[in-house]
């Protein structure tokens, strides 16, 4: 084996929910090319194809747009631009997370239009869309659209955007400051005074792109009989179908969203302008409309927020933290989109997993002329964890303390208050730290003297460094009630109906496991449906680590209710009262009699051979419209890395990496391991390579040629994942959310290990050889 490990504690004899040898059932189709994503779906008769005109400027007034030549091109069936809105109000609805930010008294105004109306505010903003009989005609038509822009000065830096002299993106707002948020407890001024030493440091993280392999925004939209059906990718079909219906001022039940398998998500896929454009064009042309976005267009749909994190940390001489004062500037790009969520997430994670009696967090979220940023795997938490874990390491070192000892002194222990309104700490960091370090043959302690620099004329071996970091994230948050339905047919097969798409985590497999376990049926008898909002089972979405707990519990509940329903029917048809019946081994028992599920379903006889028994299930997370509303557990991890740096070239080679997470209960080992490893791979990408570059008024690197994604060669062979099981989570069988516990760990681990190796502190990701060489004073 390549060095992968799982450890189940306290003992491996614990109940295994799903044997590792039992593969995820969706894999067979995936390895044979049978799985269908949006572009693969058979096209309805008469499908037209849409091409899009995107703004070539980061900031420009749209002086005029004339699509008359495009309209006249034979084969063109519909046009969308600001002159062709057919009375539709073009403003998209800003996502409704405002309850998370206490400074907001109401929803933020809708500020993003479907197509550019007065000004284009980011490179790639949708200006027009054309549907035609074939794609080449559509593309040709787009070329025939006459557009005149007046380029304006763009601003790409969030701090500069807040300056009085900056170009303003939204004149009606009069400022680029979109919103502010804050949190505090104790008295941070006093805390800093009580400190023996105060350190002020700044860390930054740039905008990035999720880059799922299946491009963002692909869809097939069809209007028929005043109803719409759209096939597309999203993590939350209900949220999005409601938004699309509202946009077209339609009855919500007339907007049907069907979601096939998704080729990667990471937060990127929800309602896009492209989907709304497809619906618009379909309604106008009375033809189904298909959009297949290019990678360049995909890059221009969404982004990860940029962040500048400045903190003052106060420490006593014994290494106890007394105060932390954090100010963040968050770059949300041209429109509101994910600003509230990201700001909120950053505020509630800005102090890490440490015990700090006096804390003040302030955040300002600013508009810049960049692609609007939204949900991105560990939204906001990737950025704050990078900052906090580097800060802690740096403060420890400056205090002359070993970073691991410093962490142990200040970290939150099981049962301790994390913050008012949130659950207490429910994991053991000490145990995780020890295991993470041991997994890379280390005791966690660092030499206080970095290996040292060397001048370039002498041959020098690479400098080695190690680091240990901790991460904390809310386990899952909010979302309202989640629903699922279980039905059993005369053959005894149980189908689980739900609206949780599967972007790759193995959601359907998870549902199947939970159903099988709850019903005590073999997996082969469980059928998992695909999301379809026509089957009205609301669920807020496969994101924020919530699916295992919320949907998982809803499925469990539905299956338990199904068992109850089977008992009820058995009583009606076969007699007895419910207490006399029990369910075991996929049968119902009363005294010596037993019946299969299929028999009981068949005994209804109302629908002939198609008799089906159904039961609904639901689950509500803890309520609370506050900063920590709905939070019921913590997602925690510890990670260790060993790397070496070539001191002449600055090139980094990762030698070993380990990650320990408190998973509660593993429902499917390979899926859990896959999420941890996959998150870490993306973490390596963010740590070492990724940023979207804006320069000379343009987004320069919106393609995989120039946006560097991690490849297999960037990942160390020695990569250990350790999953702890204490069965104490709120999810089914004691599980916890953990899919975002690895992505946040990598960057600070690498940054701190570089300090360990070379004594230099890199304060921005991505950590590049050039930055290392500059810090070493090489040029």
């Amino acid at each position: 084996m390549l060095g992968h490990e799982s450890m189940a504690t306290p003992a491996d004899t614990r109940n295994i929910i799903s044997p590792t040898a039992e593969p995820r059932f969706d894999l067979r189709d995936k390895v044979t090319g049978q799985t269908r994503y949006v572009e693969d779906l058979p096209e309805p008769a008469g499908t037209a194809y849409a091409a899009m005109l995107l703004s070539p400027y980061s900031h420009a007034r749209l002086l005029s747009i004339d699509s008359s030549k495009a309209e006249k091109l034979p084969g063109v069936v519909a046009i969308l631009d600001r002159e062709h809105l057919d009375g539709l109000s073009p403003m998209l609805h800003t996502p409704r997370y405002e309850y998370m930010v206490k400074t907001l008294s109401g929803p933020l105004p809708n500020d993003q239009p479907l197509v550019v109306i007065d000004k284009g505010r980011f490179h790639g903003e949708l200006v027009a869309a054309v549907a035609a009989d074939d794609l080449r005609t559509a593309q040709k038509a787009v070329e025939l659209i006459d557009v005149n822009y007046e380029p304006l000065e763009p601003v790409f830096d969030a701090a500069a955007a807040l300056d009085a002299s900056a170009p303003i993106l939204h004149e009606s707002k009069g400022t680029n400051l979109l919103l502010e948020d804050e949190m505090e407890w104790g008295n941070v001024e006093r805390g800093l005074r009580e400190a023996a030493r105060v350190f002020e440091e700044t860390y930054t993280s740039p905008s990035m792109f999720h880059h799922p392999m299946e491009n963002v925004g692909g869809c097939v939209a069809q209007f028929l009989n005043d109803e719409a059906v759209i096939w597309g990718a999203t993590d939350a079909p209900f949220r999005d179908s409601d938004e699309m219906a509202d946009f077209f001022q339609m009855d919500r039940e007339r907007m049907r969203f069907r979601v096939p398998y998704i080729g990667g998500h990471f937060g990127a896929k929800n309602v896009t302008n492209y989907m709304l454009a497809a619906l618009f064009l379909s309604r106008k042309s009375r033809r189904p409309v298909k959009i297949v976005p290019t990678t360049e267009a995909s890059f221009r749909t969404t982004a990860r927020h940029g962040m500048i994190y400045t903190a003052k940390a106060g420490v006593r001489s014994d290494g106890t933290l007394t105060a932390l004062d954090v100010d963040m500037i968050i770059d949300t790009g041209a429109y509101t989109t994910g600003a509230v969520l990201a700001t909120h997430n950053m505020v509630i994670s800005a102090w890490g997993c440490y015990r700090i009696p006096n804390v003040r967090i302030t955040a300002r979220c600013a508009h810049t002329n960049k692609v609007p940023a939204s949900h991105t795997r560990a939204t906001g938490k990737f950025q704050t964890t990078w900052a906090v874990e580097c800060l802690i390491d740096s403060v420890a070192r400056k205090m002359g303390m070993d970073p691991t000892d410093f962490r142990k002194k200040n970290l939150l222990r099981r049962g301790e208050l994390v913050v008012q309104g949130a659950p207490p700490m429910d994991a053991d960091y000490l145990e995780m730290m020890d295991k993470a370090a041991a997994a890379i043959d280390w005791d966690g302690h660092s030499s206080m003297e970095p290996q040292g620099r060397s001048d370039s004329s002498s041959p020098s071996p690479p400098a080695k460094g190690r680091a240990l970091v901790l991460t904390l994230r809310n386990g899952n948050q909010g979302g309202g009630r989640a629903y699922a339905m279980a039905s059993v047919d005369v053959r005894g097969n149980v189908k689980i109906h739900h609206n949780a798409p599967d972007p790759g985590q193995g959601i359907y497999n998870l549902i199947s496991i939970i159903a099988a376990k709850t019903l005590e049926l073999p997996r082969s008898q469980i059928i998992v449906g695909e999301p379809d909002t026509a089957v009205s089972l609301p669920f807020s979405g496969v994101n924020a680590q919530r699916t295992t707990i919320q949907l998982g519990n809803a499925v469990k509940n539905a299956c338990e209710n199904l068992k109850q329903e089977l008992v009820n029917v058995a009583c009606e048809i076969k007699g007895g009262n419910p207490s006399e019946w029990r369910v075991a081994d996929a049968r119902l028992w009363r005294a010596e009699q037993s019946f299969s599920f299929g028999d009981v379903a068949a005994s209804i006889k109302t629908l002939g051979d198609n008799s089906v028994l159904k039961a609904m299930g639901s689950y509500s997370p803890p309520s609370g419209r506050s900063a920590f509303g709905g939070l019921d557990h913590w997602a925690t991890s510890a990670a260790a890395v060993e790397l070496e740096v070539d001191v002449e070239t600055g090139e980094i080679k990762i030698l070993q990496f380990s990650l320990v997470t408190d998973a509660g209960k593993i429902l499917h080992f390979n899926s859990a391991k896959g999420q941890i490893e996959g998150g870490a791979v993306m973490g390596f990408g963010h740590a070492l390579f990724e940023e979207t570059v804006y320069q000379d008024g343009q987004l320069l690197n919106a393609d995989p040629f120039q946006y560097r994604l991690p490849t297999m060669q960037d990942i160390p062979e020695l990569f250990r994942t350790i999953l702890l099981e204490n069965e104490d989570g709120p999810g089914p069988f004691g599980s916890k959310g953990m899919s975002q516990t690895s992505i946040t760990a990598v960057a600070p681990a690498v940054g701190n290990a570089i300090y360990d190796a070379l004594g230099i502190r890199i304060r921005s990701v991505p950590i590049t050889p050039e930055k290392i060489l500059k810090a070493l004073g090489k040029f």
Partner: protein
Amino acid sequence: MAEPLAPIATLQSFAIEIIVNGTPWKGNVPAEEVLLDFLRYRLKLTGTKRSCESEVCGACTVLVEGKPISSCSYLAFEANEKSVTTIEGLASGGELDPLQEAFIRNLGAQCGFCTSGQIMAAKALLLNNPAPSYEQISEWLNGNICRCGCYPAIAQSILEAAEEYKNRR
């Protein structure tokens, strides 16, 4: 279904014969049609995916005469009288290739979108080098991007498949 390539606008077509997954296909293709569109739209083999369309990501990898090619940027007519193998052609008569079995066992795929490309590239590797080391695997596959980050599982799958091929010989 609307033909994505309008035949009227095409300037030249070629009469070609291609062996796709062992089955001959004869017909006309426009000069400018790329192999990816040929496979997906004409043959309805949708297992090969479109992603970057710039030869970087590997999602469109197919084998032409056993060699991996970016089908997004390879003109279909060039495959005339050549054999093309796609993901759909790997299993033989319901029996999966050891690579496919290993991928299933190790969860070498999560969202699955890059998987066809990964497996075809891996197949070409094992045809070229039956006992690759981890380093050789990662070098050969450095042009097949997996954003879900399944690299450790993919590498493990290839090592196991190589072992399985050896046992079968």
